[in-house]
Structures are given as C-alpha cells and as structure tokens.
C-alpha cells in the first residue's frame, strides 16, 4: 500500500471525443451492410443454419454490451475509484443495447427454426412447462429483459454525461457522489449506488432466465442449475477483456488524453486474470458434476460437445479462456506490456464467441462444423452494428468521464 498523496490533485484535461480513423467507421458500416445482406441470404437459403448462427452472434454482442452495464453498475455499487478512468469505455458498450433490442425483435421470428418447443406439435410432458414455453410468452419475456437492460444502461450513461456537462460549466459534481454521513465516518449510498444495486439483483434474475430460455432450451429436456452462472462468468471475463482491449487500442492512439495510466492496465489485467479463474471454476465444476453423476439425460449435452471433433473446440476454449490468460498474466511484469495485454484480450474475446458457437451449434451439426459463410456473415453484421454504436458514442462524447469528481483520484492511483 504505497501512498501517492503528493500527486492527489491531478490536472484533468478533457481529452474530448475520440477521432477514429475514418476508415474504421466506414469499415464497420461496410461490415454491417455486407453482413446483413449475407444474413438475409442465409435466412432465405438455409434458415436453420442461419438462425443458429444468428443466435450465436446476437447473444455474443448482447453479452459484450451487457458487460458494460454490469461493470458500470459494479463501480457505483462498490464506490470504486480505480475504474473511473475507463468507465466511459464501459458506458460506450451499453450504447449497442437499442440495436440489440431491435435484434431481439428479429430473433423472435427465428424461434421455430431454433427451438423444438416452438415447432408445431411439440408437447412437453407437463402443461405448466408447455405454457412457460409458449412462443408468444418467450418473445414477450425476451423483449422485457432486453428492454430493462437497455433502460438501466441508458440511466447510467445519462448520469455520467450530466456530470460531464456540469463539470464543463464549472459546477461542483460532488452531489452525484456518495455523501458523508453526518453521524459518522461512513458514506451514504448515492442515487446511482442504489440504482446499481437494484440493477444487479434484477440482472441476476433476468439474465439467468434469459440464458435458460435462449440457450438451455435448445434442448428442452436438458437442464443444469449452473447455466446462468456459466454464461455470466463468460460475460464477466469477456467484459474485462473488451474494456482492456479498448483501453490499450485507444491509449496507444492518444485518445484517452493520458488519463489512463499503467496502474489501470495492471489492475484491469488482474481482473481479467481473476475472472479467467472464475470462468474455469464454473465450467469445470459444471462438467465434473455432470460427468460424475453420469445421468444419460445430462451427459448427452457434453457428449455431443466433446465427440466428433467438437472436443478440440472444447480444448480450445479451455486454453483461450483460462490456460493462456492465467499462465501469461500470472507474471506481474507483463501486466503493463500492451502487446501481451492485447493478445490476451483478443484471445478471451474470441474464446467467448467460440464458447457460444460450441454451446449452440453441435445440436444441428453432429460433427465439427467450421462456421459457414452464413454464420460468419452474421458475425460480421453484428460486429459492424456493435462497432458503429460504440465508436459513434465515443466520437460524440469525451472518451473519459471527465466530470466524475473521483477521476483525479483514479488517475493518480490514490486507491493503491
């Protein structure tokens, strides 16, 4: 615990909005247009393949966007200082949620190509479950979940942008912060802290139900209680990786105005490291318990996913999401090395997409199947839309939450 109080007051210079290379935005636009065309073609030519691929990429970018909301909420609810310097990057991720909402509306039309329960004539043994998986009800649930997440993302970002404006006008922004309690040393939670606590509780419930609806019910007879946590572990790990990736790429190009320091790299990679362990912990325990109990109705899930070539994907996941991030980032010295950080962040992000691919695809392809042009087209489409939303936000607003009164502490590393 070193003290850095001499540097506590840091002069904050507004780095302003990011000016991305014009080619980047054009590239995203092109990817979106070309990808959407391929998606449309795919849905026309081979609907089952196309909708499964749609689910993979739709969910992937939804998860990345949600990780932004979650990281922001986590900062507010814990009153963290260290993450203020890069909070704007997490906020930018949430700006994809309105597009995700539209994508959810489209997604509803693919149900009958994806889910056995959405096919005419499918019957569950029990009436209650039949009712729960009424396609209309599932669609309504999906829209409510994504709508709620969108609402919270919007509220968090609005608060942050308002602070920026107040700061530019030279007003004190302290009123947004946790207040000191008159009777003691403790702090009163800020409005955002309360909102975040509410969000996290709501998020745990809705995200779990969504993961059951969208992924687990691909095989309606299979279930595991860990599933919501499994997808959440992936979300959390990929969230750190994406923020780290954006931080490195933007800092390299001088877009963050020198406000993101090395100690943020160290701590971001530490979080990535920690949550890669969390990911493997959840994945391993789920696997172990299903393997050990050896119920055919449960092992079928893993059996489909470790035989006929899919086992290599499973191994890849283990290496991409855990072995490499864990062993490489174990070394304290590399935690400031931008090239290593970039490599690890990319690996985890690719791993997360492959994880979803591995969860969804073996159901329609018994043998390992390299992503088809349709699946890749869909990935391209969502990537383009996601990139446009995120870079669009960052090129309109300051790349750092300059209005947050704790920014100088975050930059100076007072929390160390």
């Amino acid at each position: 615990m070193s003290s850095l109080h001499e540097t506590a007051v840091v002069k904050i210079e507004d780095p302003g909005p990011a000016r991305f290379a014009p080619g980047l935005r054009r590239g995203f636009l092109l990817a979106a247009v070309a990808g959407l065309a391929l998606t449309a073609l795919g849905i026309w030519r081979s609907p089952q393949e196309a909708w499964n691929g749609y689910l993979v990429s739709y969910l992937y970018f939804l998860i990345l966007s949600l990780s932004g909301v979650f990281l922001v909420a986590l900062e507010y609810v814990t009153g963290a200082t260290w993450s203020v310097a890069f909070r704007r990057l997490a906020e930018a991720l949430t700006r994809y949620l309105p597009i995700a909402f539209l994508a959810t509306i489209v997604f509803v039309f693919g149900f009958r190509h994806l889910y056995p329960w959405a096919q005419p004539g499918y019957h569950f043994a029990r009436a209650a479950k039949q009712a729960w998986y009424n396609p209309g009800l599932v669609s309504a649930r999906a829209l409510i979940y994504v709508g709620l997440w969108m609402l919270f993302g919007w509220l968090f970002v609005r608060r942050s942008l308002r602070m920026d404006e107040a700061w530019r006008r030279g007003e004190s922004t302290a009123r947004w912060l946790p207040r000191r309690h008159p009777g003691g040393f403790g702090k009163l939670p800020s409005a955002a802290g309360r909102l975040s606590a509410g969000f996290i509780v709501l998020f745990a419930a809705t995200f779990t139900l969504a993961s059951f609806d969208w992924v687990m019910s691909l095989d309606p007879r299979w279930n595991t209680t860990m599933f919501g946590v499994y997808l959440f572990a992936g979300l959390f790990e990929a969230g750190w990786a994406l923020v780290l990736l954006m931080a490195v790429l933007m800092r390299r190009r001088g877009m963050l105005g020198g406000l993101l320091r090395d100690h943020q790299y160290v701590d971001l990679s530490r979080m990535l490291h920690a949550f890669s362990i969390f990911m493997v912990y959840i994945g391993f325990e789920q696997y172990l318990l299903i393997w050990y109990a050896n119920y055919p109705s449960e092992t079928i899930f893993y059996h489909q996913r470790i035989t006929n070539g899919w086992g290599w994907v499973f191994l890849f996941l283990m290496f991409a999401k855990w072995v490499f991030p864990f062993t490489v980032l174990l070394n304290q010295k590399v935690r400031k090395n931008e090239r290593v950080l970039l490599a690890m962040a990319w690996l985890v992000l690719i791993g997360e997409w492959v994880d979803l691919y591995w969860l969804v695809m073996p159901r329609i392809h018994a043998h390992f199947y390299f992503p088809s042009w349709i699946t890749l087209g869909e990935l391209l489409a969502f990537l383009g839309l996601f990139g446009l939303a995120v870079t669009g936000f960052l090129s309109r607003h300051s790349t750092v939450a300059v209005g947050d009164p704790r920014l100088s502490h975050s930059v100076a590393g007072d929390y160390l």
Partner: protein
Amino acid sequence: MSLEHPATTIERHPMALVEEPPLYRADLTLSQVTRDIVAPLDRRPNGWWWLAFLISVTLLGVGAITVVWQLRAGLGILGLTWPTMWGTYITNFVFWIGIGHAGTLISAILFLFRQRWRTAINRAAEAMTIFAVICAGLFPLLHIGRTLLAYWLIPYPNFRHLWVNFRSPLIWDVFAVSTYATISLLFWYQGMIPDLATVRDHKQGRIAKKIYGIFAMNWRGTARDWNHYESAYGMLAAIATPLVLSVHSNVSMDFAVATAPGWHSTIFPPYFVAGAIFSGFAMVVTLMAIVRKVYNLEDYVTLDHMELMCKIILVTSLMVSYAYATEMFSAWYSTDLYERNRFYGVHFGLTHTFFTGPYAYAAWIMLACNCFIPQLFWFRRLRRSLPMMFLISLGVNLGMWFERYTIVVSSQARQFLPSSFGYFRPTRFDYAVLAGSFGLFFTLFLLFVRFVPVIAVAEVKAVLRQPVGEPAVTLEERHA
C-alpha cells in the same frame, strides 16, 4: 494526439475533490493504538470473561464426555439410522467449515482488493477460521466410527497395497481441509509476528517476555524484516485466495456428485462458497459486536466496519437466495420427477414437499433467516444498529445450520422409493456434541482474546493516517 477538438484544459473544481473518509478517528496516535489494543492482555480478565469461559468449558466438557461415550458405545447412540446415515455430524462439519470462510476472505481476497478496512477485523476473523476448522475437522473423524483408524484416510505406501479411493470427494475433503487449515494457520501466525513482538516489548514479567519472544521469532521490526514479511504475506494471500473457493466447493461435492434428489445440482459449488462466506461474516459480526464492547475497541472496530460487514452479509444473502431460487425454479423446470417432487410434488400419494413435509420447519427457518430477514440490511439505519445486526447475524448462523441440515438430512430421508423413506430424529447425544463444538470454539476464542492482540496493531498503524493525506506511517513507526 489525434483529437478532433483541441483538448480543453479546465482546472479541477476544488469543491469537487472528494476525500475518502478516514477509517479511524483522526486524533489517534501510534502509541495510543498500541496501548488500547495491548492493554487488555495486561489486565486480569474480568468477571464476564470468566463467566463466558466457564460456560464454554462446561459445554466443551459435555461434548468431550459425549464423544468418549460415543467412541465406546458406537455411532448407534446418535440419531443415525437407515436411510439417513449422515446426520448432524456431517451437518456440523459443513457448518463449521463454512464459518471459517470469512477469515480467509478477509485476509486474502480483501487484501488483494486493497480494502483497508479489513485491518480492524482480520486478526479476529482469521483466529475464528482456525478454531472453526478445528471444530469442523473433528466431525468427520468421529463420523467414520472407528476414529483410531482415521489415518487410513491418508494415502501412504503400505504393505497391503491399499489405497484410498481417489475418486471420492470424501478423500478430496481430506486434502482440501488440511491444506486450508495449514495455510490459514500460517497466514494467521505470520500476521501476528510483529504484534507478538510488540507484546513482548510491553510485557513486564520475565516469563511472559520470554514466551512472547519465542513466538515473535526474534522480530526486530527492521526494514529487512518488513520486506520479507510483506512479500511472504502477499504470497500467502495469493495462495489462500483459491482456497476460499476450493474448500467449500469440495465440501459441496460430497453431496453434489451423488444422485440423490436435492443433492445433484451443478450450482452447488459456488452456492456453498457464497453460503460459507455468508455464515462466516455473520459469525464475525456476532463476535465483534461483543468483543469491541467488552474490550473498549469501538475506536478500532468502528460502526463503519460493522456496516461494511453487514453489506457483505446482504450481498452473500442475495447470492444464497439466488441459488435457492435457481434450485427451486430448476426443480420445477426439470424433467426429473424426483427433483420436482422434492419441492412441489406428491410422491406416490405421500406429501413430503420441502415446504410442507416433515422437514418444513427446517426449510422455513432457513428461508426466513437466510433470505428474508437479512434483507433488512438494505436499510442503512438497520445496518448501523448494533442490536439489530447482532440479532440478524445470530439468525443467519441459525439459518445456515438449518440449511445444511435440510441438505444433509432431508435429501437422504426422502429418496426415490417410499419404501426407503425415513425420518431422522437427532438424539440428545447429537445435541450434546453440537453444544460441545460450540464450547470448543468459544473456549479457544476466549483464550485467543486473552493472550493475543485481537486487532492487528501493526496493520492498523499502517493505515491510520493514510486517508487524510498525511505521509504514510513508516515501517519503523508501525512498531512504536
């Protein structure tokens, strides 16, 4: 710099600067800290201490006699009977192991997260961990029946070429718990060395000086000492962190690998870990609420510390509730008849659901104490009320014991066929051994507060001045 708009430089508004509230009262001096914390060790214990000690030792005695009785008479004197062959001993084992988790979380994870407030409570919480693990470890040894052959659990080369069953989670427990006990003990002891030296320097009596001196391992408080100390501490913290997850995950697998309805659930490992931290923090709150009062340590274990612990209790309560809800939802969702019937069904005409069956009282105590009542901590006023947090934390301890009871006992008593249904009824021997384990725990804890500084003096000094922006305390000063 490729910025569209020229960077606008605005001096930070001075009003906007936030000061972190200090952890401790501003006028505390370093020597005052030493005096306040070490003073109780010089005084003779008061009547309350003796009363508490007497009660604890009596309970311990009752437990010890019962254990001897059980060793002579056999496990049959307990409520154990087919089909419930795991009774309160296993419940107590899981309960005590869980209690121990707060210590490791505070000493390892909060340390890595740079939570400075941990300094006020880590010593006591770590001590509690050790004592809880001691209590926990006794139960499997007693439960195996032929306790004198317990060493058979350890794999070692032997003439009969007999090996333990490495595929059994019960054996994983042996490794997990013994590793946990070792690391926790090392961590606790290492953190104590500077303070033992402080006590050594303050003690007047020659014998006391000698004894504390031996345990202080010739600590001189030089920069070199501190250097080694801090690197070792960091490493132990890193080793202990996975242990927070692994130990209780292992314990959960004692159940989750089996196929009994109510046991086979993949969420068990993280759910048990959350439950362990939950119950552990509840125990820390219960104990610290008393200790800070009795030892006049309100300036060190402040209401803020207590409030933060209540927040952790709230968070872990939500996690545990999430796990319960997932289990209940999954049971409904599942295609497994037995899993569903455990919670909702009528099984071959016999009503025995979780909520209404013979174990419903345990289930409702569990839900009330673990899920509903801790929600009161959403209110700041209640989080900062000592009587309230004391009561709620006691409730959590009760609720967590009943949670384990529900899991261990009721799942065995209601398996697949009505012909193998049973009802477990603890006997007075079950209760006596449980009481004895509390006696052991509190006896050890009372001895701990009597002979060792309950608060990490050196660590408190290290963070004493930091938040108010004064220069940090130097290494030498910490030992003043």
